């Protein structure tokens, strides 16, 4: 298998799925009609409702849904089950479920006066469905933040060539916001300056270091990375704070096996005991990331979060484009680079130490989240995209097209990790490094490309995390602000969200955190499809294209939440010799898993009643449920 096959398979499947399935549903079930007025045209206010070109909207939708999900999920799944199940789920998921979820959520909002999913749930199912959705969204955001901060802190603590680029990104973000909005400088000039300097800082990280095949890089000779490395060592001089375990070996701090098939012992990992050492450097990296996110969540958005995202977009676009070119060229110019180096299939239920379960069903389907299907897309599409849709017929190229494009990001991540061998973010970055090396015809060396891969990965995740904390504080204020006014204070709400996130990160349950996030994300997608099913039923249309994927995702995600709760229970919560914070974190996550399952079941129960209501009474005679 090589990267060329991934490109061919991806192109053929997406072409067939879009033209022969998605278009058919658009034409026969939804009956999209360009002559019908959309909410953007009916309620145009120049702000929320604004008819927008479908090309602009496609770019906007794609950028808003494409983040670290398709990258982290794919590299974790490829490590646990191999590349074959990963690519199968990516392709089957996007064909029958992913695009349908995004597209149908947008169309449902368009046909319901531009109302959001929660408002439609309130009207079509029951008022408490909306309240449950809000609680659901808060824990969903918390799990995203925990999983993303954990993986970024592990990278920053382990790779001294990465932090400098991130520091420059923060400085450039502050400068960019000031230059564009205050100094009114040309956006093109500011873009070239800030993106150029940030990219240069990211690539300069490893400058001067010594790289030898099969050995860890020697940072001592590098001026930037050497300084960061010595700083790290002095911080870690006091030794590990405590140790945690990850029986799945998916934690980003666990090194990949060497040529002999055994994992080496590093400062963060004890190969003899299989324990992960939580070093002070990891704690410092986590705190620095939270400070970055705090600035992004609380400063005026134009001053920091927006310019950081803007610079981050260009970095992501340049690196991903270069990697994609490399993936296409590699089989012709350097077949060795393009060949896959990880196992194709590791079994339906890989052996995991400590009694943890990782069966392919349901765990693969939540580990790979956003590349195949995602609830975030439906949530965003129903509000951000639907209110700007100029014609109904734009919903498919924008919503469905955006999802298919995100799927290609997942395929690219799979290619990068598969050609690099090993596992985790390190393998992804190494793969990106090799692809950039091929795309630049050897001009950009693999170590510099790898540094760009690491840096880009952190940038993608970081831009999401700062917005997640921003949304989390709004959610907390809306949800609990009436109980205690302090929750409405943006600083207090941010700090509460960050303290809880930090506790989850330090509990050392990264893989479970990721899988719980995946389960809640996919469950959100299932809820969106459930809503679409009820809506289609209420208007007398055939809901099968949404109902069948909904049932599959519903059962899968509830099962995955229960399996994760079981794993936490047997491998951490009740296992002797665990650090107190790990045990507390494990119990907290078990509680969150059960809460999400109960919330999902309550929504399903209400939806069942709604379904029967619309089945027995003609749609036009159904009364909306009274407010509770």
């Amino acid at each position, binding site marked *: 298998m090589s990267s060329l096959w991934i490109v061919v398979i991806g192109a053929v499947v997406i072409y067939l799925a879009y033209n022969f399935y998605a278009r058919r549903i658009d034409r026969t079930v939804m009956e999209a009609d*360009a*002559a019908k007025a959309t909410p953007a045209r009916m*309620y*145009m*206010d*120049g*702000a*929320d409702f*604004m008819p*927008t*070109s479908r*090309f*602009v*909207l*496609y*770019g*906007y*939708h*794609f*950028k*808003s849904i494409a983040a670290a999900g398709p990258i982290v999920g794919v590299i974790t799944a490829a490590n646990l089950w191999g590349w074959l199940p990963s690519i199968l789920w990516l392709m089957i998921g996007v064909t029958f479920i992913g695009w349908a979820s995004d597209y149908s959520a947008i169309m449902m909002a368009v046909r319901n006066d531009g*109302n*959001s*999913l*929660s*408002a439609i749930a309130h009207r079509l199912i029951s008022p408490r469905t*909306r309240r449950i959705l*809000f609680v659901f*969204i808060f824990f969903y955001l918390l799990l995203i933040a925990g999983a993303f901060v954990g993986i970024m802190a592990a990278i920053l603590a382990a790779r001294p060539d990465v932090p400098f680029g991130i520091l420059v990104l923060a400085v450039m973000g502050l400068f960019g916001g000031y230059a564009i909005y205050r100094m009114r400088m040309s*956006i093109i000039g500011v873009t070239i300056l800030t993106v150029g300097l940030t990219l240069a800082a990211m690539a300069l990280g490893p400058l001067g270091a010594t790289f030898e095949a099969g050995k860890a890089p020697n940072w001592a000779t590098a001026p930037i990375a050497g300084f960061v490395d010595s700083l790290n060592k002095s911080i870690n001089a006091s030794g590990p704070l405590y140790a945690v375990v990850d029986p799945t070996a998916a934690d980003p701090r666990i090194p990949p096996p060497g040529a002999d098939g055994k994992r080496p012992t590093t400062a963060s990992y004890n190969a003899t005991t299989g324990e992960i050492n939580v070093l002070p450097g990891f704690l410092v990296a986590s705190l620095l990331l939270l400070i970055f996110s705090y600035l992004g969540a609380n400063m005026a*958005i*134009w001053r920091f979060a*927006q310019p950081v*995202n*803007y610079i981050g*977009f*260009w970095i992501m*676009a340049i690196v991903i484009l270069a990697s994609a070119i490399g993936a296409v060229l590699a089989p012709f110019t350097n077949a060795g680079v393009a060949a896959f180096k990880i196992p194709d299939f590791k079994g339906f239920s890989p052996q995991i130490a400590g009694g943890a379960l990782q069966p392919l069903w349901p765990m693969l389907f939540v580990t790979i989240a956003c590349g195949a299907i995602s609830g975030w897309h439906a*949530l*965003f599409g*129903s*509000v*951000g995209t639907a209110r700007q849709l100029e*014609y109904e*017929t734009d919903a498919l190229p924008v919503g469905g097209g955006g999802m298919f494009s995100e799927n290609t990001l997942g395929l690219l991540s799979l290619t990068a990790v598969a050609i690099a061998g090993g596992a985790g973010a390190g393998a992804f970055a190494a793969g990106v490094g090799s692809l950039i090396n091929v795309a630049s015809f050897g001009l950009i060396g693999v170590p510099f490309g790898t540094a760009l891969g690491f840096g880009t990965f952190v940038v993608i995740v970081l831009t999401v995390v700062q917005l997640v904390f921003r*949304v989390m504080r*709004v*959610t907390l204020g*809306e*949800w609990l602000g009436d109980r205690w006014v302090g929750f409405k204070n943006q600083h207090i709400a941010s700090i509460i969200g960050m303290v809880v996130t930090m506790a989850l990160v330090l509990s050392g349950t990264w893989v479970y955190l990721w899988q719980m996030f995946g389960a809640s994300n996919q469950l959100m997608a299932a809820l969106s499809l459930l809503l679409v099913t009820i809506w289609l039923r209420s208007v007398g249309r055939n809901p099968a294209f949404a109902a069948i994927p909904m049932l599959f995702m519903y059962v899968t995600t509830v099962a995955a939440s229960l399996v994760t709760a079981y794993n936490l229970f047997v491998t951490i919560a009740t296992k002797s010799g665990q650090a107190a914070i790990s045990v507390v974190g494990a119990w907290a996550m078990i509680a969150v898993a059960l809460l999400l399952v109960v919330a999902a079941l309550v929504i399903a129960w209400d939806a069942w009643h709604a379904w029967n209501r619309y089945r027995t009474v003609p749609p036009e005679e159904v009364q909306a449920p009274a407010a509770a």
Partner: protein
Amino acid sequence: MPDDPRSTEEKPGRIRGIFGRLREITYGMAAHDMTRYALRTRASMEHLFILTTMGDMLGIPILPPYYSLRLLPYAVPQISTWKRRMLREKDLTDAMF
């Protein structure tokens, strides 16, 4: 589609069309959210101003009617949009995006 309103639009040449679309997609990815945020901020400020001056139209009398009437001609173009935006039911998900 024969009744597609877009069929009446003037179409650019093939090459210009492709570059125009690429430019629009790039703008959508890079800067549309910034533009949208700026427009929403401006709309919120304007609508807050209209609320304080024309509040009686929504049953919230804040300013004495004399001053409201003096300002009315300037607010007229925005009134329908303002009423729709102010009276529209909003929830958490509206604040998120």
